[in-house]
């Protein structure tokens, strides 16, 4: 091993001076932590754009008839809202931000296996994201196809569908590179003693996610590329006018996009599995079951895609198999929920912001999961498919689940990442506003959907007005909560209390053994691991007094 440049481990990664200076030292850094922070900044920027679009949509729907925009604008806005939130916020949210930052630290490595590839994937992410944004301002207007790009509308639409498709393709590539980096890193760079069953559960979930990223993403890549060719050169692949089968497009789209749902939720489940034992001060209940259920979700999740297509007129066999498998895929998620709740039993529970978000995750994700079961039932699906019931369902899973998981992760790891503490009170106020606002915003959509309110509607029949109005009011509460939360985290960076305390929450995983904030190579000497994560021993609870002060 060659000698380190001196001082590598004396200063934190934030202060380390490498070859470049200023901004360059960030955007050309191959340090996994800096890349994680780059992802964090870019992801939150895109999130702000996505939230704005969502807010505008809700405002439009406050009353029947045109309110603040025309239908074409509305159609573009829900497309962009979907594309941005899915490809630029939820998919990279946990793996690319917190995975990049903490995966190497939590397995006791100095970096990921391919640091330069890691930087490349951030660049691709940025390029893809900018392409999506730029398409808004090109003549022709932003794409209006919905984030699903269903054929044949996506071939017919006169809007800028091509940039949106290319953006999704490039973002897919970025996601693949992150995935293959993580799989290799977990296989090759675990520190001494870090056996498979000593891995933190967040790593298990990232590992499962990474496999889906590697295997499923190329299929949507090629599918979107084929749509590009159809629009550009008049190829006949899916276009029904040239003999193609629009349903085959949907199959290929969902072969990726359903597993992608698990790319989005699995890491959030991993975060929850980290937070709950730490704030209950006890070991996790059923470690192996939670770990294997991540793998089971990744596996089974690849086999259920056609439940997005129960109304397209598939064969009876396909309907039967896909409905059955859909119900089976619920089981590993249920196992996780039960184990989390059991982990609270006989703990010594602290209700700090990360824990509040984790508990809210369990509640909201459960609602999302249960309403998913309703759609798995074929006859019920024929009624509620493509209604606002679905919109409510996936927001409960994607926002109430993954979104809250991301917020939990931010509150959990923020002090570690930046060496600054945020204020507890505003964090808790923001949490309650988010929780209440979220439910007021999305729950009415379940009711509307059951009553027959289709989704992606610019206008609606007068009988749905009260629900829409309530939902819009919810969006205001939610956004207030978001503003307080982000302001609180932001002001922590500026003027929050500095801390160099290594173990802020009293966690047992390796990131709490590194300095705060971590130095360039994470650890002075690579740590050795001798027991499973989350093994709280009585003598570990000595800093009880210190903890009291923190809380």
């Amino acid at each position: 091993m060659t000698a380190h440049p001196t001082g590598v481990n004396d200063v934190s990664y934030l202060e380390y001076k490498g070859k470049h200076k200023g901004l360059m030292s960030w955007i050309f850094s191959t340090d996994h932590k800096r890349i994680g922070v780059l992802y964090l900044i870019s992801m939150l920027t895109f999130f702000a754009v996505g939230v704005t679009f969502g807010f505008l949509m809700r405002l439009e729907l406050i009353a029947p008839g045109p309110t603040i925009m025309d239908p074409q604008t509305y159609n573009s806005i829900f497309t962009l809202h979907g594309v941005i939130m899915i490809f630029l916020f939820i998919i990279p949210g946990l793996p690319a931000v917190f995975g990049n930052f903490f995966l190497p630290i939590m397995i006791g490595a100095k970096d990921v296996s391919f640091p330069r590839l890691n930087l490349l994937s951030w660049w691709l992410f940025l390029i893809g994201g900018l392409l999506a944004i730029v398409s808004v301002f090109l003549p022709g207007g932003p794409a209006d196809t919905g984030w699903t790009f269903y054929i044949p509308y996506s071939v017919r639409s006169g809007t800028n569908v091509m940039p949106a498709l290319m953006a999704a393709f490039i973002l897919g590539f970025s996601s693949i590179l992150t995935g293959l980096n993580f799989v290799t890193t977990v296989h090759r760079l675990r520190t001494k003693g870090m056996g498979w069953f000593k891995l933190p559960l967040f790593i298990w979930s990232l590992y499962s996610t990474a496999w889906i990223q590697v295997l499923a993403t190329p299929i949507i890549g090629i599918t979107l590329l084929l749509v590009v060719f159809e629009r550009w050169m008049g190829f006949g692949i899916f276009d029904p006018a040239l003999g193609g089968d629009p349903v085959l497009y949907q199959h290929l789209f969902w072969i990726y996009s359903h597993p992608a749902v698990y790319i989005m939720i699995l890491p959030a489940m991993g975060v929850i599995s980290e937070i709950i034992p730490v704030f209950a001060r006890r070991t996790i209940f059923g470690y192996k079951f939670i770990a294997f259920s991540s793998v089971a979700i990744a596996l089974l999740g690849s086999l259920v895609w056609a439940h997005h297509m129960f109304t397209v007129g598939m064969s009876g066999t396909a309907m039967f198999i896909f409905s059955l498998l859909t119900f089976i895929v619920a089981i590993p998620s249920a196992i996780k929920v039960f184990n989390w709740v059991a982990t609270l039993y006989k703990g010594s529970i602290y209700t700090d912001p990360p824990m509040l978000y984790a508990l809210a995750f369990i509640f909201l994700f459960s609602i999302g999961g249960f309403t998913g079961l309703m759609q798995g039932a074929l006859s019920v699906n024929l009624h509620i498919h493509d209604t606002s019931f679905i919109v409510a369902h996936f927001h409960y899973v994607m926002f109430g689940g993954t979104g809250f998981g991301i917020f939990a992760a931010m509150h959990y790891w923020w002090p570690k990442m930046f060496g600054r503490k945020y204020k507890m009170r505003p964090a808790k106020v923001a949490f309650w506003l988010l929780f209440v606002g979220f439910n007021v915003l999305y729950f009415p959509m379940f009711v509307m959907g059951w009553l027959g309110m289709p989704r992606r509607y610019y206008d609606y029949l007068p009988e749905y007005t009260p629900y829409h109005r309530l939902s819009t009011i919810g969006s205001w509460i939610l956004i207030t909560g978001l503003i307080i939360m982000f302001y609180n985290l932001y002001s922590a960076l500026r003027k929050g209390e500095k801390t160099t305390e290594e173990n802020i929450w009293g966690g047992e995983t390796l990131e709490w053994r590194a300095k705060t904030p971590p130095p360039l190579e994470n650890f002075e000497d690579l740590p050795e691991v001798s027991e499973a994560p989350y093994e709280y021993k009585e003598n570990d609870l000595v800093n009880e007094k210190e903890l009291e002060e923190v809380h």
Partner: protein
Amino acid sequence: MTQDHHNHETQHNHPGYGIYFLVWFALLVLTGITVTVAGIDFGNLTVATALTVACIKSYLVLTIFMHLKVENPVFKVFVWVALFFLIVSLVLLFTDYSFI
């Protein structure tokens, strides 16, 4: 674990030149077989034969040219995972097209 080991020599010995020529020859023979068989009308069997031969050819390339035979077993598991995903997708997709 493997964190710091300097494997300037890869852990396994690659086979010598001879085996590569042998595999190459086998591949050419197999190509000859498919082309010849394609000329004869086997009905539905034609495709089956062509695909079987293609699978054998790929197997040879994977194991010998791509060194899977001598790699760490985890590589083989990886390949199976990828193939499994592809095949299962294909089979499940066909439940919509062929069992109506």
